[in-house]
């Protein structure tokens, strides 16, 4: 193998995991598939990542079912919701959980809590739990730096903890409307955010219903400063305790002077985060992110 092809092969090997998760960017995807076509070594490395015959990624992994009591307790946010909703619909997965000796309910207490069922059934499960926890702590250390850069509000100690999601009811769908008149009755003016600012103190927005929704007048920072900037992509996400309720992706210019968030029905009272993420001017840089915390009555 020549030096050039060895380098290409090393590069390809490093991309295989992202490829198998479906997360390789377009150009790299084309390059990797071209390499895979002529590389039996890479194809053989990829083969174990194919689902086993008769299994499908559309159902809960067998490894999750096998370790359900402790593993399901660690699920959070969206992943927890998706597993929960899948279980409601999927008789097969419920049957498999039952076969494995588990109830089809996501555990909501740490498995090693004194008095819990797992703690009483012996030390072996505890040992596995700690194995898992240690792995996660390792992962958390690596992720902490990323979180600090991308989501300073989460780590900023704003006096707010993020509870588990099991207590929440079903989310109300929320639609976004753009380029509204800033003089719309009942509009709330958003303050100027700082760059990567913490979510400031909550902005009181009153009750939010499908009738008038919530109209937010955008500050100058959320309006394109130049024609070039106006084409950049803006992603607006409404979150409740880290869980995405609604999201919109579009060009920066489309926001206009004011936007409206209109739920179907009434938005549950509580705090919400509205996140604006603007693509960077230079590829490879992180997006510019602003958070607002909205308090709904």
């Amino acid at each position, binding site marked *: 193998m020549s030096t050039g092809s060895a380098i290409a092969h090393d590069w390809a090997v490093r991309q295989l995991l992202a490829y198998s998760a*479906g*997360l390789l960017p377009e150009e790299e995807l084309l390059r990797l598939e071209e390499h895979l076509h002529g590389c039996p070594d890479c194809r053989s490395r990829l083969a174990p990542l194919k*689902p086993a015959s008769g299994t499908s*990624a559309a159902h809960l992994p067998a490894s999750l079912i096998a370790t359900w009591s402790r593993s399901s307790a660690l699920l959070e946010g969206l*992943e927890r919701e998706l597993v929960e909703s899948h279980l409601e619909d999927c008789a097969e997965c419920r*049957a*498999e959980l039952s076969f494995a000796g588990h109830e089809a309910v996501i555990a909501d207490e740490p498995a090693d809590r004194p008095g819990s069922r797992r703690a009483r059934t012996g030390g072996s499960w505890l040992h596995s739990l700690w194995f898992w926890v240690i792995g996660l702590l390792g992962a958390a250390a690596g992720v902490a730096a990323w979180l600090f850069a991308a989501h300073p509000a989460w780590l900023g100690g704003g006096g707010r903890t993020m509870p588990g999601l099991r207590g929440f009811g079903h989310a109300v769908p929320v639609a976004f409307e753009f380029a509204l008149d800033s003089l719309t009755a009942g509009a709330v003016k958003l303050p100027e955010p700082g760059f990567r600012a913490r979510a400031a103190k909550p902005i009181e927005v009153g009750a939010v219903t499908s009738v008038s929704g919530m109209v937010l007048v955008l500050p100058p920072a959320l309006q394109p400063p130049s024609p070039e900037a106006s084409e950049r992509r803006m992603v607006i996400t409404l979150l409740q305790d880290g869980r995405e309720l609604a999201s919109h992706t579009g060009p920066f210019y489309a926001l206009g002077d004011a936007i409206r968030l209109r739920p179907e029905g009434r938005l549950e009272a509580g705090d919400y985060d509205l996140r604006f993420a603007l693509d960077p001017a230079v590829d490879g840089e992180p997006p510019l992110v602003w958070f607002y915390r909205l308090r709904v009555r």
Partner: protein
Amino acid sequence: MRRKLKSLPEDTVEDLAREAMVSLYRLSRREALVNPDPLAATLVDRVCVDHVRRLRGPAGRLDPLSQKDAPLELPAPSPGSEAGVDMLELFRFVVLEHFKQHDAPCHELATEFFTELSWSAIARQRQLRHSTVIKRWSACMEQIRELAYAQRGPVWEWARQARIV
């Protein structure tokens, strides 16, 4: 299982045996099992291999293993290793389930890709150009990247640790 994996802790044996049994049960519900004993042995073998791969963490997960029938050495858990749950499988499940609820075309593409692991094959099946299928998937992939920015939990943490989002 103990023949395949040296020095396996008791609790891990229990987990892996249960994982193999769940896979066997899953298969038995989809088709009649003609010869279950060899199938069970194959599943146990695969579960052991997968366990070793998971312990190696994202960086070493795809490295070749030792000889096919030789006992496997249990590696020391590396950063990001997945002792209990196959996080790649769980990640794929979360992606599929998200698309199932929010985006049917992306759900179809994801389902096909996670089965085939080849966009070329999918392009052939759909009688589309390779680049067209990939472009369609890229729009879906952006949704996943956006989720990875906003979401927390083991799945997303694993994906960030593995540097795939």
